[in-house]
């Protein structure tokens, strides 16, 4: 008797089953487990004190000075990184969208930082910002802009700014690629028509380019917000979170809480708050920009 053929639904599930199983094991289970851990008092230094405490870890965050301070640092870090990334990426993408000699080389150079791991990026910038032998000091001294070598990372403001710049340098290429891809989809006829209508450069940018870049920009905003909010390796290498708490972001505090203090319960709660905040911000972006174009999900 011939075997009854599988329906499309069954076949689809069967074919996807291996991937679903792997994703469930490697992604869904750890995520779910981390939430379960966040509901416990779970510090490896006190295994006997481990117990279910419900939402206490989350409630304790409202009067957790270290958490609140790191949240402020992270929020400011995201704003600064995002502002610089969007402006610089847009500028670079507009330049690279033009046809000129050496464009390929410039494009390759612009993409280079993206290939650099965060730790290496941190180490490189630490060398550049070094107070004794740093290239930045050498350059500024030779240009006569500073009298002597400066310790750039020793003031709270300086450390914060330079750390943010190091992060921008590392993540900028991704945004450039997204925006460049968006620019490539804009029909040239629109610009021709705008020129016939005597629209200037700024007007063409505002009336033609920007509306077409709404969706690529949305992707850039969402992903760069997530990146900046979760920034860890560059900051860890560059300043360790200092001076004081000036560059202690929520991600840095989280890693320290889990791996140095071995407080897995509280650390997991931090991680979920990070997830929740990035989710809310992402929804905010979509709500804001969705209506401004024919965005399709």
């Amino acid at each position, binding site marked *: 008797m011939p075997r009854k053929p599988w329906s499309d639904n069954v076949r689809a599930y069967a074919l996807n089953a291996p991937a679903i199983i792997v994703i469930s094991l490697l992604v869904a289970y750890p995520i779910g487990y981390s939430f379960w851990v966040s509901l416990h008092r779970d510090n*490896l230094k006190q*295994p006997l004190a481990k117990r279910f405490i419900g939402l206490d870890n989350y409630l304790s965050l409202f009067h957790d000075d270290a958490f609140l301070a790191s949240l402020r640092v992270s929020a400011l870090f995201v704003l600064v990184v995002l502002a610089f990334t969007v402006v610089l990426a847009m500028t670079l993408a507009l330049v690279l969208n033009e046809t000129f000699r050496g464009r390929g080389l410039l494009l390759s150079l612009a993409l280079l930082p993206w290939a650099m791991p965060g730790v290496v990026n941190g180490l490189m910038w630490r060398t550049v910002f070094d*107070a004794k032998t740093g290239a930045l000091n050498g350059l500024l001294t030779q240009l006569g802009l500073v009298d002597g070598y400066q*310790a750039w990372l*020793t003031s709270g403001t300086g450390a914060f700014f330079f750390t943010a710049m190091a992060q921008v340098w590392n993540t900028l290429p991704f945004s450039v690629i997204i925006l460049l891809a968006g620019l490539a989809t804009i029909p040239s006829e629109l610009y021709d028509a705008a020129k016939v209508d005597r629209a200037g450069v700024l007007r063409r940018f505002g009336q033609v380019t920007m509306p077409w870049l709404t969706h690529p920009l949305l992707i850039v905003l969402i992903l760069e917000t997530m990146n900046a909010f979760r920034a860890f390796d560059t900051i860890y290498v560059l*300043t360790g979170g200092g001076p004081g708490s000036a560059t*202690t972001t929520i991600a840095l505090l989280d890693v320290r809480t889990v791996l140095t203090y*071995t407080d*897995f319960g509280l650390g997991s709660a931090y991680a979920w708050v990070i997830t929740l905040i990035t989710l809310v911000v992402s929804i905010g972006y979509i709500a804001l920009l969705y209506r401004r174009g024919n965005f399709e999900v």
Partner: protein
Amino acid sequence: MNAFTRREALKLAGLGVSASFLAACGEGGGGSGDGTVRFEGWDYEAQLVQQNLDRFARLNKDIRVSYTPITSAQYVQKVVAEFTGDAGPDALYVYDDSLAGWVEAGYLQPLDGLAGVADVYDSIYPSNAETMTYKGKRYGLPYYTDSQCLIYNAEILGKAGFTTPPKSLDELTRQALKIKNDGLLEYPIGMTAQLSDTWWAWVWGLVFASGGEMFADDHTPVLKSKDPTTKNVFAWLRDAANKSKVLDPASLQLLPVPLDNAMMAGQYAFTIGARYALRTYNDPAKSKVAGRMKLALVPGLEDESKGTVSNTRMYGLSANTQVKDKAVKLLTYLGGYDRDKVPYTAKFWFMQRGLGFTFTDLAKDPDVVAALKKFADPVVYQELAETAHARNVLDVPWYTEFETEMHKVVQQVLTDQATPEAAVASLDKTAGDLKKKYS
């Protein structure tokens, strides 16, 4: 001949993945499954460690050791991650800072009753034995110990007209100011003050040298209420960094290795560091200032130094090791006596790199004495060992969190973002909150 179909290839690939997965699942609990002793340590002189382990392998042909050096900055995190994943090593380095936490976490097992352990504990400095003991049980065999000292460049001091090192912090400021005003160095004092996961020994050293304590023996913080020493040391630090400007602001960007390089390049006249650093600083092959670097007692707030701080690094035994006998043999080789009743590895490290020894008898060993004279004054070296004591909060589970907070607070003092009063008040509150949290 049968064709090797795509279906068969997929089956084989699936088998391979399954086998790897099952093999990985079965690897937990320490040991590699073939009787090899898995040994891990931070990456200080990994080649020398391997050289010493090769000797162990020649002496113990039935024991195979797999050694993994882990970068120092990540050591604690990586070991915690491994033990959490039930894949910890059989034997490992342990910081005294981590001991209490790792015992409480169930990573380590006590060594009491094992052959030779009691002999070792009877032969080492009491402060080291005490540091390796937690709740009455012995958990470590000694790797090395060291005390903090003032390290100074005698040539620079000589150029400024000084023939002896400073005995107090005020004198240190005066000498540093003279060096600065004479145009010899812009910032004569350098410290390691970048945030990291290792302890800031020099802060504890300055407090102990001034006769103070941060905690009472019952772990109650006294730095705000009863003992003003820490506050006064912080005041000196703030002034040195911001008023007299003799302490390099770049210290906030300095980790231990860059500081060593700066010292060996003659960029600083003073620092506070471990005694063994002198071995490298005075090595002509590595240092431009070899032969000019000296050690002295850590200056304090009073005219005479009241002591210094010591640390103990040890070898520990995993609680879940499947190769206990072999691992114990390795531990004994590394941290105990050999058949000739010589603490071979402790002596090896001193001779090779000047790492301080915990075995009191080694101080009289002719080889050790001769080697010591090449890089340090034996009298001062010994005095530092005798006046040093350990931090009395190492056995609380919240020590690491307090230490991390202290780093931030000291950075705020150095950058004049916090007054000494506010700094000690903040630390006092931190200690109180941590005690409550862990109670």
